[in-house]
């Protein structure tokens, strides 16, 4: 059983941080959250894989196992906690692709096959367990882009095509067409994160020319607005206020998920492989450090959330094997034994 900290305590701590932000006094916040191993075995681990969710199931596939690029696809049942291998993705085995789901279909495209940057784009029908090739991504062939969906549209942005990128393209599944939208105002980057909340996408972190330190901006993409992008506060310690004093969020190749009105960023790399975890409060535009990922620190991990349950799985580090999948309980007290 997990001892859940009282919400009121969190509220008071949050209020203390907000009040403290005016006075530049040091505020010590107890780090909360607990990572629970769900299937403690190497399992279907991989780095640079893809994940999307359809009807309370997660789908994880492609990626790199340290030797080969992969084309397999697995379904994860978070309720019963088991895996089912599904139909291989057609096309070349790849890593660093992007994925999203629209109208109960999964979409996977772009990526890297070890030699070539890829531009092809595929639709997965979970009901029939089958793949269909769709119109090639209309931007340049690339890898380490981000993919996300908002309502009935999909989006691919940033990445690396030989140069670092910040363009964004919208996919209309009904017409199988791509439309370029206004590019992000921030830095060009690859290995970024995009997470969606209330029909807006939040894009941050990543790398440009081997450095993640300068990629400290956070941008919100709202497809309902013509201009598209607006910037939030920086995610590194650059203000005179205290709220960002402890920020160590910048990184490349991290994992993110959204649950219970908060976003979580974990793992990734910035000089070394990381395991620390950060919680983003959308309304306050504030990040709070949470219990570090309890598996082996890793980069290129995959994360997803289903019904307000967040999972992180797969990835790579200098150590193998990895355990398989961990669920994060952000309000629970850290327990070393689970």
């Amino acid at each position, binding site marked *: 059983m997990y001892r859940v900290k009282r919400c009121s305590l969190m509220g008071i701590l949050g209020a203390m941080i907000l009040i403290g932000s005016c006075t530049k006094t040091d505020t010590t916040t107890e780090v909360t959250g607990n990572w629970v191993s769900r*299937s*403690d*075995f*190497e*399992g*279907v*681990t*991989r780095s640079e894989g893809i994940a999307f969710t359809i009807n309370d199931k997660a789908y994880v596939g492609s990626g790199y*196992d340290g030797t080969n690029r*992969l084309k*397999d696809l697995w379904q994860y*049942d978070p309720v*019963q*906690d*088991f*895996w*089912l*291998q*599904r*139909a*291989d993705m057609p096309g070349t085995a790849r890593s660093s692709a992007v994925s999203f789901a629209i109208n109960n279909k999964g979409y996977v495209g772009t990526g890297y096959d070890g030699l070539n940057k890829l531009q092809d784009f595929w639709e997965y029908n979970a009901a*029939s*367990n*089958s*793949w269909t090739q769709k119109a090639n991504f209309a931007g340049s062939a690339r890898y380490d882009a981000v993919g996300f969906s908002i309502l009935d549209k999909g989006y691919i942005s940033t990445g690396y095509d030989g140069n670092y990128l910040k363009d964004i393209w919208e996919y209309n599944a009904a017409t199988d067409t791509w439309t370029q939208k206004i590019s992000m105002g921030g830095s060009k980057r690859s290995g970024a994160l995009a997470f969606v909340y209330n029909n807006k996408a939040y894009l941050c972190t990543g790398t440009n020319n081997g450095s993640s330190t300068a990629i400290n901006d956070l941008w919100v993409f709202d497809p309902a607005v013509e201009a598209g992008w607006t910037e939030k506060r920086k995610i590194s310690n650059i203000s005179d206020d205290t709220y960002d004093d402890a920020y160590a969020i910048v990184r490349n190749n991290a994992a993110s998920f959204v649950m219970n009105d908060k976003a979580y960023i974990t793992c990734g790399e910035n000089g070394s492989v990381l395991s620390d975890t950060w919680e983003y409060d959308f309304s306050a535009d504030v990040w709070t450090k949470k219990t570090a990922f309890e598996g082996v620190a890793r980069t290129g991990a995959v994360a997803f959330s289903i019904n307000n349950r967040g999972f992180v799985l797969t990835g790579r580090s200098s150590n193998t*094997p990895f355990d398989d999948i961990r669920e994060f309980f952000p309000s629970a007290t850290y327990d070393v034994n689970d």
Partner: protein
Amino acid sequence: MKSIIRVSIAIVFLATSFNCRNHSTSNTQDGNKKYAGIVAQTFKTGKGWGYEVFIDNKLFIKQSIIPVIEGNKAFARESDAIKVAELVVDKLKHRQKPIIRLDELQQLELVTK
């Protein structure tokens, strides 16, 4: 010792699986982690056969359809499900990922309806 473990696992499965059969067991010790066993068993689906793989008595894979190929086909024969399940168990025992590849599936020459 090994035979004792085998027998004990077999007893567990005699007690827990009625129509299903236990096909493969192993006992591995790797570094800090000790596994009670990697075990596969078949089960009947509406359309044929599937298999389950357990690690330490915890369900890990429940394969109700043939992996790798498109469509939702069950294994036509129990022996086909056993072949693939044993391959998965063998991979896990050798610390490999439990991924079945198309060429492996073809080598097993499954019966398709």
